[in-house]
């Protein structure tokens, strides 16, 4: 029992801290890219502003418009948050520092992450607002369309690693000596990153939020703690998808040349560094690219990414069987 409680506490702390680190990277990075200092006067040169934001949202009034569908409206943020936090359970920080090393780790992760779609869709539909409705419908189309390239890109890794458990995949990369991104899965890596950006609904795929058109899309009618849950789960999602990407493609907690007895100490640090590098690339892409239109987005998913990932699986399978 205590073990379960410790593991749940660990999950909560890691999830929140991951979201906070990525918030700082996104907002401060954006400010520096825009030639301005960003939040400065909150704390130590402005770096504790996520705490101030959390406190601000917690003490705000929870406004629920009269015409909404109340139970659906109230529970929509919960779906999104649950689907993000549950992913933290399978990502390994070292061969033993993992909440639950399931045999079907990858399968579990992909299945749980698609639950978030329900939350977004119901949030858009239940707010009695035409703009939220449009945001929710766009989100439904986008999230469902980009599930497929995500899954198919991971299938290539699974074929190459011969196991679905995440610890097993990292062990396989250690055995090969090179991470999978160099060892043949570069196309899969790119497809995974593009599909993951679309799953997180970040620019250039942020049509459902579409700030200059729909002013917050499906999240328009939310205020207070419910909006905070949406906001934090977006950054948690970013953290965990980057962590999964670095586990599957970049070698996870392993760095060559370091002794393996101390992996319990340097494993988390290595994983965090790799996640942060991927996150930084996502931040740079967010603040420099315009956003796709909805039909161009679907075009990209169905006509470009899915055929590419199918070809990737074919080539991986041939290489695996042949050599």
């Amino acid at each position, binding site marked *: 029992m205590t073990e379960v409680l410790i593991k749940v506490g660990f999950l909560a702390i890691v999830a929140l801290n991951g979201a906070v680190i990525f918030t700082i990277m996104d907002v401060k990075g954006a400010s520096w890219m825009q*030639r301005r200092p960003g939040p400065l006067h909150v704390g130590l040169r402005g770096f504790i502003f996520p705490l101030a934001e959390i406190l601000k949202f917690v003490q705000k009034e929870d406004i629920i418009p009269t015409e909404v569908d109340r139970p659906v409206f109230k529970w929509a943020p919960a779906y999104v948050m649950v689907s993000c936090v549950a992913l933290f359970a399978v990502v390994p920080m070292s061969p033993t520092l993992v909440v639950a090393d399931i045999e079907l780790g990858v399968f579990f992760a992909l299945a749980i992450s698609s639950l978030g779609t329900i939350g977004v869709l119901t949030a858009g539909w239940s707010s009695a607002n035409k703009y939220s409705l449009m945001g929710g419908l766009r989100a439904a189309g986008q999230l469902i369309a980009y599930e497929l390239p995500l899954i198919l890109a991971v299938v290539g890794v699974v074929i190459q690693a011969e196991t679905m458990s995440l610890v097993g995949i990292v062990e396989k990369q250690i055995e090969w000596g090179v991470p999978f991104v160099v060892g043949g899965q570069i196309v899969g890596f790119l497809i995974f990153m593009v599909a993951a950006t679309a799953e997180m609904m970040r620019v250039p795929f942020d049509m459902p939020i579409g700030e*200059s058109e729909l002013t917050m899309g499906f999240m328009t009618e939310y205020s207070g703690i419910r909006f905070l849950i949406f906001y934090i789960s977006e950054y948690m999602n970013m953290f965990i998808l980057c962590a999964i990407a670095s586990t599957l493609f970049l070698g996870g907690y392993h760095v060559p040349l370091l002794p393996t007895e101390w992996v319990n100490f340097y494993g988390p640090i290595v994983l965090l560094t790799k996640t942060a590098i991927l996150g930084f690339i996502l931040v740079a892409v967010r603040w420099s*690219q*315009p956003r796709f239109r909805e039909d161009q987005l679907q075009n990209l998913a169905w006509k470009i990414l899915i055929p590419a990932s199918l070809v990737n699986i074919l080539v991986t399978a041939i290489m695996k069987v042949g050599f």
Partner: protein
Amino acid sequence: MVNALDPQNMNSFSEASVSVEIETEDMTLNIGPQHPSTHGVLRLVAKVDGEKVHDVKPVLGYMHRGYEKLAEVRSYPQITTLVNRIDWVAGFSNEIPFIAGAERLMEIEVPERAKHIRLILTEMARISSHFVFNGAYALEVGALTPIFYAMEDRERVLDLIESVTGGRFHPNFNRIGGVKPAAGAGPTSKKNIQDLPAGFYRDTKVAMEKVIQAADQFQNLIGGNEVFKKRTKNVGVLTAETAEAYGVSGPILRASGVKSDLRTQTDYLPYDQFDYDIPVGENGDCYDRWDVRVKEMIESAKIVLQAIDSMPSGPLQAKVPKVIKVPQGRTYVRAENPKGEMGYYIVSDGGLGPYRLKVRTASFSNVSILPIMLEGALLPDLIAIMGSLDFVLGDVDR
């Protein structure tokens, strides 16, 4: 409706088909007065089918301030103060045609130095307005950083205008007969001449070089970007005939392929002494409208650099009587504003102020093509097209 399954209608079995029509109702979406992308308080009542827009009715008038009524009870210097708030982004270029109209009725010859100073300030106002367009258009399409770069480079130009005239957006620097000669009318203020301040030439050269660099940076950051090209190419195509039929003017007309620039016909500003190109587009889509304005920015910077090198010396204002009464008559003056063609129709009856002033603004005519261009566009395209027309609500509603 013809029944395709009727045996008499089927020529061969291969042509049999069943057509099923699903009756859907359009949703009326109010892209209301408060919206992040409508450049002010513009209301569009749009009938939307999913994401496709069927019918758009613009509702104007939320920003009507009654300029023509206000001008009936005021004198010429007072109206100059009011008039540069019509298109508040490029303040200086609204005053010039009004004062030129009064000068034309009085038949005054403006000194050369005043004309050159007016030209420099007008081109700086044009650069400032196009900076706002570049930054704000990128923001509407989704790129979130170019607006900051645009505002940073625009600050230099506004500081220059402020060092000469005292105001950034509303300079109020034109007087009938020239530009503002002195700070006051008293014995010491008369000697405080409001000419170009020390360091102006050097600062202007630096600022214009940075403007040309910024325009290149915009081309790199946005113009070559594939996502931007996909969002703006072949979106909102406006043919030259439609544009001329609706009275559209300015960069929009030039992007549709018509090489028409009123600066060549302006006789009250010395444009013929300088060497500049007139950028013209090919397709008339949103990309061309954006491209034309970026290239215009570079041309304006070149004009300012040439004007600084060849500034004549002389008085700042012609000899005018102390109490100015414009003789009877009527005149219409046109100018090439950054947003399009601006015109003032002044009817004077010999008094201190005009009897009637009619303002023809560029954005009002430019907005009138919205229902035509938005037929069958998707909702994100609506935002892109509206942004590329570059109107300001003060200009539309006066």
